[in-house]
């Protein structure tokens, strides 16, 4: 187990190193930020001075080397636009993104698992079919269009929920959060539901499929034959077994929720990292783009690493000994 953990950690660090090179080279190949930052009437001397000040006149490999040295100390460059450290900008926006992503996951889990369980136990009932139909529609709906419709209905037509922003926040352990105030919750409702919809559909499908498969297994038949109450058969024997794949998927999907938050944040003007990324791409603010990508890639690699470990702990059937685990 320890050998596996170390090898898996080594792999993760390798992926991170490769990603940092790709991200750096890729992002630094975009157009010239001097064009955007310097007054269009500036002469060549002024442009050269700006380039020197930002370190853009050095050879690209030297820029990468400087970048790596700085990155190892936690500096990922200074934003061209805001003139503050890029990492600081990202970290300031990260709580908003996490809050949105977690709220979406909570919605998806609280509704997805019970609905999927019901549909799996009663696949031919009207309600079971209706749940599946909803999940198919949820899969087909493009996230950003659902966001528009939500704004159209709840903010413009009914006027009961605000269309954008984060609302009133209170400080929890020094981090501003929205979910503790009524105004904040109102602002959170639409974007969180928007982001949750896809994961909700996924969880319904997954739970339903696992339930239908598990219900035919011998241990369920045996538990029933023993005369256990249906509530106990489903609540303990069935649920315990189907939760293994579900927990894995939830873990892996947490990363993708953070990525998809880019779209939701843009629609609802939610002041998180995704909106910052899109703004930075449009303004060619390279250090912020690089910092965002590295922070996100690190989060992803950490999540994948933890889920892999958790999986081997949860399911004793997964023996990782000699197998080349990916």
């Amino acid at each position, binding site marked *: 187990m320890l050998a596996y953990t170390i090898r898996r950690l080594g792999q993760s660090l390798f992926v991170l190193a490769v990603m940092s090179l790709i991200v750096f080279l890729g992002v630094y190949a975009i157009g010239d930020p001097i064009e955007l930052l310097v007054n269009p009437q500036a002469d060549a001397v002024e442009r050269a001075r700006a380039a020197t000040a930002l370190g853009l006149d050095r050879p690209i490999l030297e820029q990468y080397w400087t970048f790596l040295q700085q990155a190892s100390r936690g500096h990922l460059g200074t934003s061209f636009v805001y003139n503050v450290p890029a990492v600081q900008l990202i970290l300031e926006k990260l709580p908003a993104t996490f809050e949105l992503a977690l709220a979406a996951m909570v919605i998806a889990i609280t509704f997805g698992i019970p609905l999927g369980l019901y549909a799996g136990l009663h696949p031919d009932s009207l309600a079971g079919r209706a749940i599946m139909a909803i999940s198919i529609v949820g899969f087909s*709906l493009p996230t950003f269009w659902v966001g528009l419709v939500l704004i159209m209905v709840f903010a413009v037509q009914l006027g009961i929920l605000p269309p954008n922003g984060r609302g009133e926040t209170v400080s929890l352990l020094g981090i501003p959060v929205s979910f503790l105030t009524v105004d904040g919750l109102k602002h959170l409702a639409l974007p969180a539901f928007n982001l949750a919809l896809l994961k909700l559909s996924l969880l319904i499908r997954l739970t339903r499929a696992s339930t239908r498969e598990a219900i035919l297994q011998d241990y369920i038949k045996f538990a029933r034959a023993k005369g256990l109450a249906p509530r106990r058969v489903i609540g303990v024997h069935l649920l315990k077994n189907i939760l293994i794949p579900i927990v894995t998927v939830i873990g892996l999907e947490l990363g*993708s929720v953070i990525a998809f938050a880019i779209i939701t944040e843009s629609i609802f003007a939610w002041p998180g990292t995704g909106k910052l990324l899109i703004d930075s*791409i449009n303004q060619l603010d390279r250090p912020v783009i690089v910092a965002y990508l590295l922070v996100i890639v690190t989060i992803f690699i950490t999540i994948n690493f933890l889920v892999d470990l958790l999986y081997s702990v949860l399911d004793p059937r997964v023996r990782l000994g000699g197998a080349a685990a990916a």
Partner: protein
Amino acid sequence: MAPESDSSWKRLAAEFAESRLAMLGLMLLTVVVTLALLAPWVSPQNPYDLGQIDIMDSKLAPGEASASGKTYWLGTDDQGRDMVSGIFYGLRISLMVGVTSTIFAVAIGLAMGLAAAYFGGWVDTVIMRIVDIQLSFPAILIALVLLAVLGQGVGKIIFALVTVQWAYYARTVRSSALVERQKEYIEAAKVLALSQPRIVFRHLLPNCLPPLIVVATVQVAHAISLEAALSFLGVGLPITEPSLGLLISNGFQYLLSGKYWISFYPGLALLVTIMAINLVADQLRDILNPRLRK
């Protein structure tokens, strides 16, 4: 097994028609594709010909008639373009980008997957490790990074979509090729001393196609949806190539003032397209999956 004779095609068609929902999907898909192909001939106007649009007609509500007596059934956008025509032309671009990127991604994924399964060893390890790493990141993130680097353009978004998609096909083809490789007909072909390319392309390949077709159908819908999302975020197609996503993005700024139709109807067209493809794909998966055969 790949259907080869006429009778097995007929059987598949009959099985497909068993689901009314799938037939509805196929019907909708046919309508959407026809409208997209015939857009220049069936649209009330060419929305990108400045001679045909009138700025005085801008932001008219659905069903409203202009001063010149023309009726715009789905309203007009901020430039006075007819939304119906805009949607037909947008469908054309969205479908073109989705289908083209899928074809390229299938070709690359097929080659990589077959190579990984047939040669095994380090070829397999290298290809599948790349696939694993790539699939551990969400498609939208990879596409966003690529487009942030490359900039806007039809070729560029197709490149980005191919890059994020090939890995699914490589994985699908590899797993079915690994199963097929063990079967007797491949052994028989080897005993007959057929050439390697002949074994791979005439024997192995056709039998790996059914699962690939299913994945490809679903992926066309994903590609269209992803392109729309990227264009909505402003990193996809340029304003000269208005796909559905770009139309939606354009109407977004008027949404809060109640002018919903500029982004609502293009979104509805996008939704119908994606849903139709998914319905067809679901049924294809069921009839091509031998485990579900009655």
